[in-house]
């Protein structure tokens, strides 16, 4: 595809987002860039199940912070920290103050365009590129 720069091809990206419309659209954008989308899932529980169930390691993750009904994506971020998987936050709430352990992670403020999302995920992956295949 024309929008695939190659960096995302075959990369396994976890997508956590509770709003169906947004999840559906972001999934499509990532797929068109030839990434492999794990999810999308709308909750912490489902995300952790996915992470533990994956045989192959994840290359990165896009996390919505506020998952509705008071649930936040921080437990997922904690688990990803342990696994050494890079992630970024996509959030609609500009007032959310990230906790110290999650500070310094890239953050995208909603609404997010396709170009913003792909650029951010690419630079996320570039930060830990695997050895050339």
């Amino acid at each position, binding site marked *: 595809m024309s929008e695939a720069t190659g960096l995302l091809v075959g990369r396994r990206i976890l997508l956590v987002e*509770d709003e*169906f419309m947004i999840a559906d659209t972001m999934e499509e954008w990532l797929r068109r860039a030839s990434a492999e989308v794990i999810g999308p899932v*709308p909750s912490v529980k489902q995300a952790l199940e996915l992470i533990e169930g994956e045989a192959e390691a994840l290359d990165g993750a896009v996390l919505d912070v506020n998952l509705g*009904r008071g649930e936040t994506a921080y437990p997922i971020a904690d688990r990803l920290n342990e696994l050494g998987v890079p992630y970024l936050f996509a959030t609609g709430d500009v007032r959310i103050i990230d906790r110290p352990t999650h500070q310094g992670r890239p953050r995208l403020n909603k609404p997010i365009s396709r170009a913003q999302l792909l650029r951010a995920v690419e630079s996320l992956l570039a930060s830990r590129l695997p050895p050339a295949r």
Partner: protein
Amino acid sequence: MLDFARIMLRQQVLADFGEFALRSQDLDKILAEACRLVGDALGTGRSKILEIQHKERSLLVRAGVGWDPGIVGQLRMPMEEHSSETFAIEAGEPVVTQDISKEERFDVPPFMKEAGVVALVNVPILLPGGRAYGLLQVDDLKVRDFGEDETQFLRTYAAILGPVIDRLLMARTLYSSEERFRLTVEAALDYAIFLSDPQDRITDWLPGAQAVFGWTAEEAVGQPSAIIFTPEDRERRQDQWEIETACQEGVAPNVRWHVRKDGSRVFIEGSTRALRDPDGTLRGFLKIGQDVTERRRSEEQLRENAARLEVLVAELQHRSRNLLGVITSVAYKTLGEEGPAAGFLARLQALSRAQGLLSEFGSDTAEVGALVRAELEAHTEISPPKVALSGPRVLLTVRQVQNFSLAIHELATNAVKYGALRDGTGQLSVTWTVSQDETSQRRLFLDWTESGVDVQPGKVIRRGYGRQLIERALSYALHAKTEFVLGEDGVLCRIQLPLE
């Protein structure tokens, strides 16, 4: 003359005692003086007063002269049936024993025999109403016949003693209950309590009032009660209203902000009560109030926060609706309204309608019936048998409303383009119920039933995004189940949605 002198002396004793008893408030002193005077008057130098201890059925030597200190105030003797004392109390009149060695009617207590008492007279002391208080006992160490004049003198003496004792006993009871009352009121520091006169000038300012308002009793007494009212309340004559209401109704509520000595404010919940004599004359006012400033402040803070939140929510709803309106305009101007733009604009409008209903229902819920009705009314007239809706009132949360509305919008659009709402022949029924499953989870069951549709393969159900919205949007984050099938004469869709 001798007799006359003696009578005069005894009259003098009675008069002296009466005067002394009127002046003194001390029962022990009065009884001691009574013993001294009677011992002198009868020339024995020995007498005592025995007080009945009802609970213990005994007699206490309450006062005496001529007796050892170990006996007066200490000795108690049981009220035995055969004792001289019990005999006299029951007789109700003076009982004379000339010589105790010859006494056959009763026994004389051992301590008296040991002290060498030979003769005695016991005179009952009766309280007003006839209840026995005890005995006046005059003893002599030699055989003696107490004459008629002497026993009469002792009767008179005892008759004076009775009321005197009664008055002091009552005063003591009153004093101790007053003392208890005072201690109770003074300890109640959480309550401001004070009294005012009929002109509402402060007369009694208790420690609780000082603790709450800051003025000392010296500063407050004599001031008008209005000093604790705020200037605003005084301006509105609330102080006047309060005492007028208390006069008319007996009591007036006093629930308002007050001022303290230092000018700070304190919220009091209390009342003002009019105090009246039995004949109805106004004596003044009793004001009791509790300092509830802390509670009041948190309540006011809560109310302010709630009000601010309400404004904020209304503003947000307003902005969301406006934003959707702006997006619709931009889309229309950019894309026109033909082709794919038509579907886009229709979906935007469905979202706007849901948003509108959310703000209409107050804050964060919208009703299933209203959502379905709004969606269908955008396309057609709702009137049976063509279109029939029925179901109970069910509220959906803000999280559910958007996707639910979009799903209903897609079903309605589908019905307009291909199904029951396309021409005049089809029928649509939308019914819903709520039931609980075994885990007590309440669920909405909604049936969308189209009938009378000329089913042509490939032309009844839309493919693509619309169907995806119906089947996936609700299940994604809301755990709903959607079954969407083509029946013999139209679309059947059942939505099962867990309620929050």
